[in-house]
């Protein structure tokens, strides 16, 4: 390996080690939380008519919940890592190291993606015995997962760069990530919404992430898969461009 590659792999391993050493908090806790949602909502809504032909409400719910966990955990991984380094001051070790913007970006995003994958796979494994899901389009499934996890990891990086204290990250999570992920059709099909909200949902990128993920399982969803993929890719592209620009110029990180 070249020195640059060793640098990248080291940062990636360090980021993985951070969440790996507290798996209880970083994987088990989110899995338990979403399982509780599943239990409660599946129980409360079991008598409702199925959303799509031949897809029960519980089946409909699982992909949405998995995606919600992916969104929240990918965001949490990068944003909390960065803000901790900033608050503790140890970010200087990284800043003084011969690592470039692309290496920072790649290592942080990849580590977050790994955590998101771990959460998603654990949830699917746990629900599988009770809610067996078909996998109609594995390619779409993987593509939507990667784009979503990576997008939110990038958003987490941006939030970490902008934030000056933990409160700022909490505000970002509470007023942006959580509401948008709840209002994206995790618990319902947007077709069931009043017209205003139905149209508004189509401007929420998280809606396409969840809808596209559902398509991967059932082969149909609220909007066509190419549209979901386009939104996910577009969101990732825009967020990455902003984030890389910040890293290249040293925005907020360099005084």
């Amino acid at each position, binding site marked *: 390996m070249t020195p*640059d590659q060793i640098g990248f792999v*080291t*940062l990636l391993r360090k980021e993985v*080690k951070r969440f790996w*050493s507290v798996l209880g908090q970083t994987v088990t806790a989110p899995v338990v939380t979403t399982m509780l949602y599943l239990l409660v909502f599946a129980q409360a809504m079991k008598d409702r008519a199925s959303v799509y032909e031949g897809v029960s409400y519980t089946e409909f719910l699982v992909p949405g919940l998995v995606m919600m966990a992916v969104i929240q955990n990918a965001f949490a991984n990068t944003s909390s890592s960065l803000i901790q380094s900033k608050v503790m001051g140890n970010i200087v070790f990284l800043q003084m190291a011969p690592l470039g913007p692309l290496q920072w970006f790649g290592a942080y995003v990849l580590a977050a993606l790994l955590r998101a994958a771990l959460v998603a796979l654990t949830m699917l494994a746990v629900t599988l015995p009770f809610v067996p899901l078909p996998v109609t389009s594995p390619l779409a499934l993987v593509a939507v997962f990667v784009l979503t996890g990576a997008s939110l990891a990038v958003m987490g990086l941006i939030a970490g760069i902008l934030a000056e204290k933990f409160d700022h990250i909490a505000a970002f999570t509470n007023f942006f990530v959580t509401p948008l992920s709840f209002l994206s059709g995790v618990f319902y099909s947007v077709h069931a919404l009043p017209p205003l909200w139905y149209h508004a949902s189509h401007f929420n990128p998280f809606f396409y992430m969840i809808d596209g993920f559902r398509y991967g399982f059932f082969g149909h969803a609220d909007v066509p898969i190419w549209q979901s993929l386009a939104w996910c890719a577009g969101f990732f592209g825009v967020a990455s461009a902003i984030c890389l620009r910040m890293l290249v110029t040293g925005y907020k990180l*360099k*005084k």
Partner: protein
Amino acid sequence: MQPAIEIAGVRKTYGPVTALRGIDFEIRQGEFFGLLGPNGAGKSTLISIIAGLVQMNAGRISVMGYDTVRQFRQARRQLGVVPQELVFDPFFTVRDMLRIQAGYYGCGREVWPWIDEMLDRLDLAGKSGSSMRALSGGMKRRVLIAQALVHRPQVVILDEPTAGVDVELRRTLWSFMTELHRAGTTVVLTTHYLEEAQELCERIAILDKGALQVIDTTRELLARHPFRFLRLRLPEGAQLPEALRPLVAAEQEGTLELKLESGRHPISAVFMALRDAGVDIDDVHTREPDLEDIFIELTGRSAAPAGASA
């Protein structure tokens, strides 16, 4: 020969505060260099700019010939910096931290023996498995020093490595730095203990209010001011003759310190004036100027932070 560090026209403002107002100087390869100045002079700002932590508003810096902005990778591989603040990552043990740090610089297992050697030399061997958060301040400082050296940089900058460090550790650090220097490493040191700088540094730059006041070899700096100090203890109640009054530089507990300019105020003239006035002398003592005197001369301030003494 290529300078170890070349600083040209470096300016830095933080909002309304001007931290550096156009700094130019060079640090030569293999030199033990002292960067001195009172609090707020801009030393840490300059170091942070060299390290890539802070962006300069104007100017150019190179480390071993590599521009710190355009060729930041090469420049940083040549450089190890010990920051002034005691920063650490509480997630990792001492040894993990050092191995991670080595990895950032593209170093793998081949430096592990060097890491163990440093842990040994810095008296940290017993703490290698401890979490960073479980270390005392002095131990954290030593880990910071080891971290700056993991990739065996050619140029090492230490920002107040001996601040808040006990006497024994200070000696350990001195001998460690001297050893590095002897092995060919360029060492740049900032400190408020001027005896330390006088003892260790071959060349010294003094910054004040963001400007370079002086840069010279330690020997030249000490010779530059043609002063010597004469300490006199006079008997109880005796008065210094009026003519000698303007020469008094300090006075404490009955001991007077006169600052004499060679050529203008020969010591014999002082004794003559005392004899003419019929004043006896209890005790007499001369002192050569030290860096502290020169520092005060140049900056009008004492180097040691209030309460500190080396």
